């Protein structure tokens, strides 16, 4: 079984462990993830903040390449890339004049036929149906599932889960043997792209998230976005500074948590790459 795979820039660099865990999990379930040949950066936040046409043309090129490669479905683990690709599909389908302008630059054919899956949809469709009997080390901990912004908003375009108190990650973690807690910061922004240019804001926003998770007894925070992971993990010093105390709760990608539950090797899942030691 082969699926298209768009890692995006983060998974190749600063969030390498996310890619490792996705690929390890896919391999364990006999799924071949075929990377889109010669893929480019989707433009992330920078493109849509500065230049509308650019912000649509870059993802359009990615989708055209996938089409050219004969891929009907691609999995996009990064929530930001998932958002950009889905929004681009939506905008170009809605406005044919815009589509013509944007795809001229690409010089590739674009029909918008590729189906874009986020990591949760990928897990739900291809991993969970075969999970029966494979949970050898249940992830027996209290977890705070953190969705961030771009997985669930705007609902009209993404049509995924629900905007308030989403449950898709919680359900996955239940199946992995964990106890997801009800908490108040599931979908509050972590500070996103301000990580470098305004780190203090990240300290505050991510600090509120970690603080609430800690107050409610979470032993781990589960994420599905490399940006969120980076802010909650790599920027832990800023968070601790905002909270006025040192908080040790580790942050795991959903694929790492499920990988652990099905008995995959910790190194294969990249857990040693985290800034906050993963003790669970």
């Amino acid at each position, binding site marked *: 079984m082969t699926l298209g795979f768009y890692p995006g820039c983060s998974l190749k660099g600063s969030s390498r462990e996310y890619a490792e865990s996705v690929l390890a999990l896919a391999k364990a379930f006999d799924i071949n993830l075929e990377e889109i040949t010669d893929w480019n950066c989707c433009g992330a936040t920078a493109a849509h*903040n500065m*230049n509308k046409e650019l912000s649509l043309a*870059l993802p359009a090129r990615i989708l055209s390449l996938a089409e050219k490669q004969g891929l009907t479905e691609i999995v996009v683990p990064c929530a930001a890339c998932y958002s950009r690709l889905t929004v681009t599909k939506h905008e170009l389908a809605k406005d044919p004049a815009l589509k013509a302008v944007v795809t001229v630059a690409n*010089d590739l054919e674009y029909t918008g036929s590729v189906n874009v899956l986020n990591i949760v949809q990928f897990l739900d469709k291809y991993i969970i149906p075969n999970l029966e009997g494979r949970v050898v080390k249940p992830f027996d901990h209290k977890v705070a599932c953190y969705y961030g912004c771009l997985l669930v908003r*705007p609902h009209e375009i993404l049509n995924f889960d629900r905007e308030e108190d989403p449950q898709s990650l919680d359900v996955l973690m239940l199946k992995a043997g964990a106890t997801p807690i009800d908490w108040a910061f599931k979908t509050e922004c972590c500070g996103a792209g301000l990580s470098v240019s305004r780190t203090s804001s990240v300290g505050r926003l991510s600090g509120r998230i970690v603080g609430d998770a800690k107050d409610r007894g979470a032993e781990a925070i589960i994420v599905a976005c490399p940006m969120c992971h980076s802010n909650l993990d790599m920027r832990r010093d800023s968070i601790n500074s905002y909270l006025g105390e040192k908080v040790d709760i580790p942050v795991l990608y959903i694929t790492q948590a499920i990988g652990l539950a099905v008995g995959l090797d910790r190194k294969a899942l990249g857990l040693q790459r985290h800034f906050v030691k993963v003790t669970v």
Partner: protein
Amino acid sequence: MSSDTHHSKISGLGGEVFEHTEVKASHCYQCGKCSAGCPLSEEMDYPPSVIMRMLQTGDPVLEDKVLRSFSIWVCLTCEMCFARCPMSIDIPKMMDFLREKSVNEKKANSKAKEIIAFHRSFLDSIKYTGRLYEIGLFVDYKARTLRILDDLALAPKMMKRGKLNIIPELIKDRSGVAAIFRKSNKKNKN
């Protein structure tokens, strides 16, 4: 809600916003729910509902302030405002438009220097390689902002964890990507 079969042309910045984003400032009844839920609202000079009000007035002085505001740059496009707005006003889309216009007209707030520098460094990085080269991004960003000491300690920590690539990844069709940049930059001066 009234149908849009007949409406008088909206003047000024509000009219431009409507033309490019379908956001009609007159729909906003200033309930403030967007500002209440905005995570960055306390760092903004004008929270989102106030920006909407400024656009509603059609006053060129206020419109200028909007383009020169810090709000539009510190906005994270987290989409929380749009998700909760009772009038379904697409504020994030409007913010994107205001940002682009603000930079093109050289009105970007000076406090947003670092934020804009980061965006520019990011885009410059992918313009030439097709994919993000983090070290390149950092170097370019520090050159633009002169924040040389920031996050200096971070680089070796990342490298130790295998999170920082020394060598950039170059895609094959770099000219294709460069062409995309060229074409989209024709109108803009980014």
